[in-house]
């Protein structure tokens, strides 16, 4: 690691590739290419346009949320409630639209407000009360998922007016709206982290809270905003997920099992569980890797029951690398 940074300091204008590979987040490109090759050898269909489109479309949800999660995890916190927030925002908006006759755009704003509120609750419990973020957001996530089922009486809320499906059927540049949003967020988050004073504050908060506080950074506020951004992006994902369903409905099952894809993807993308490290581009690749594994295993005709354990193993491997790297940097 130290050699890499020294090399970076020596070259004033490193080539794009050099810089890309010098970032340890980009190390994920290697397993990504290996896996695609592996699946391709078993079944070339992994690189068929339709498969690629499907991968890009599916990874967009964890990817979009991941762009908030990467900031949150750099500040040293985590949010396990995002998948549940997806569900509740969808159900809440659907219920407002169908049962209260609220216009679609207005219901969406209320639902997004709800997601911000949940993010705020996560932040208050973690930052002010001092409950560990894993416990806070696990508990809030369970509660939120529960409310979602209660709200919907356990059944999808439909029929919904046609306009609910509008954004979900749009295909700008041949990809989904979520994908476009994810890319936009990635660029924004990348700029924030690397080019702005906010980024400096985010890294300082997660690396050395004392250092941050000494220079007057309000670490509690940084973390609170990160919690709210993550939850807000989960809310957006929930609404867009609903919009993208073949029959748009406020289904409480939305986002089920997606926690794994988000957290594992972000960690695979080089974000550290200990805070202070991570990048938006790494997150994109991490989430992509998760989806390549999921889709590749289907295409290569592995027993579908292997999917989850394989993803779990990949996450454990990434987490182990993270711990080792962290210990080495602690020295």
């Amino acid at each position, binding site marked *: 690691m*130290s050699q890499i*940074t*020294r090399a*970076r*300091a020596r070259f004033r204008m490193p080539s794009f590739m050099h810089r890309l590979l010098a970032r340890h987040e980009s190390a994920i490109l290697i397993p990504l290419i290996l896996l695609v090759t592996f699946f391709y050898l078993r079944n070339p269909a992994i690189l068929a346009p339709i498969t690629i489109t499907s991968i890009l479309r599916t990874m967009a949800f964890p990817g979009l949320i991941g762009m908030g999660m990467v900031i949150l995890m750099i500040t040293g916190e985590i949010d396990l409630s995002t998948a549940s927030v997806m569900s509740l925002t969808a159900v809440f908006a659907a219920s407002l639209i169908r049962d209260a006759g609220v216009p679609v755009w207005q219901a969406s704003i209320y639902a997004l407000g709800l997601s911000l509120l949940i993010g705020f609750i996560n932040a208050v419990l973690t930052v002010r009360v001092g409950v560990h973020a894993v416990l806070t957001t696990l508990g809030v996530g369970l509660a939120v998922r529960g409310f979602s089922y209660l709200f919907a009486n356990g059944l999808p809320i439909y029929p919904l007016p046609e306009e609910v499906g509008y954004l979900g059927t749009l295909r700008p540049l041949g990809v989904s709206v979520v994908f476009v949003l994810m890319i936009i967020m990635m660029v924004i988050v990348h700029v924030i982290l690397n*080019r*702005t*004073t*906010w*980024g*400096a*504050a985010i*890294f*300082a908060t997660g*690396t*050395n809270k*004392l*250092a*941050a*506080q*000494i*220079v*007057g*950074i309000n670490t509690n506020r940084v973390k609170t905003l990160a919690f709210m951004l993550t939850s807000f992006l989960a809310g957006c994902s929930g609404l867009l997920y609903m919009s993208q369903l073949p029959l748009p409905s406020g289904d409480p099952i939305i986002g089920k099992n997606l926690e794994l894809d988000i957290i594992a993807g972000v960690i695979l993308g080089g974000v550290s569980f200990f805070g*202070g*490290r991570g990048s938006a581009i790494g997150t994109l690749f991490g989430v992509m890797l998760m989806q390549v594994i999921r889709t590749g295993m289907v295409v290569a005709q592995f027993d579908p029951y292997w999917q989850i354990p394989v993803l779990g193993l990949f996450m454990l491997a990434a987490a182990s690398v993270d711990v080792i790297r962290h210990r080495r*940097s602690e020295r």
Partner: protein
Amino acid sequence: MTATVNNSPNLVSSPPGTPILEARGISKAFGHVQALKNVDFELYPAEVVALIGDNGAGKSTLVKILSGVYRKDSGQILVEGQPVEFHGPVDAQRLGGISTVYQDLALVNVRDVASNIYLNIEPTRFGIFINFKKLYADAQEILHRLKIDLPSVKVNVGELSGGQRQAVAISRALARGRRIFLLDEPTAALGVEQQDKVNQLILDLKAHGSTVVVISHNLEHVFKVADRLIVFRRGRRVGTRLKSETTKEEIVGLITGAIKGDAVEAAT
């Protein structure tokens, strides 16, 4: 028992003029432990003061109160004669011009030297975008002013040696226009050569008109850099000596209690 305590010993062993920072009758308890008992303290422009004493003598507690980390139980802090209240480290920095360089240095290891020096006061464009060109130039200038030799301002702080990290921490304070530097065990974890560099840095700060407070166990080090020595023992200030008028033996005696402290300072 508060601001009325006579600080006559200072008349003997203080530079003339108004103190830039003064503390009167400071007390602080942690539960049943009285860490500081009615302590007075004063700093003058462009001097190096050493706070010495055994572990638990109260010197670190005093520094933490002056740097805004702890709240005092009683007493008064004055900056250039004006009473102030520190509600946190930022107050101490803004109101008092006081910067503390901690033992663990409190640097952001994953960021480079320049980013650490200017953390939260980065030069910007449009208010939020960091102006990296100016950032690196400014950082270079600060290092140059302090004659600090680092491979590059773009090196991650995590890769620097202890002495270099110390220098970055001090540069960070200087970049904020601080006039008073509280250094907590600045040479504790350093090799001899690096200790000399830090000593030189302290003298350079003084030459630039800054006041430096050094907390140290290391009498060798203290006698190299300090103008005044203030000895603490069991939460009290037991002696103040000009370096030119004392010996290591006397200081050791004050630290251990073998030499009785100055009557007024040891009272109450």
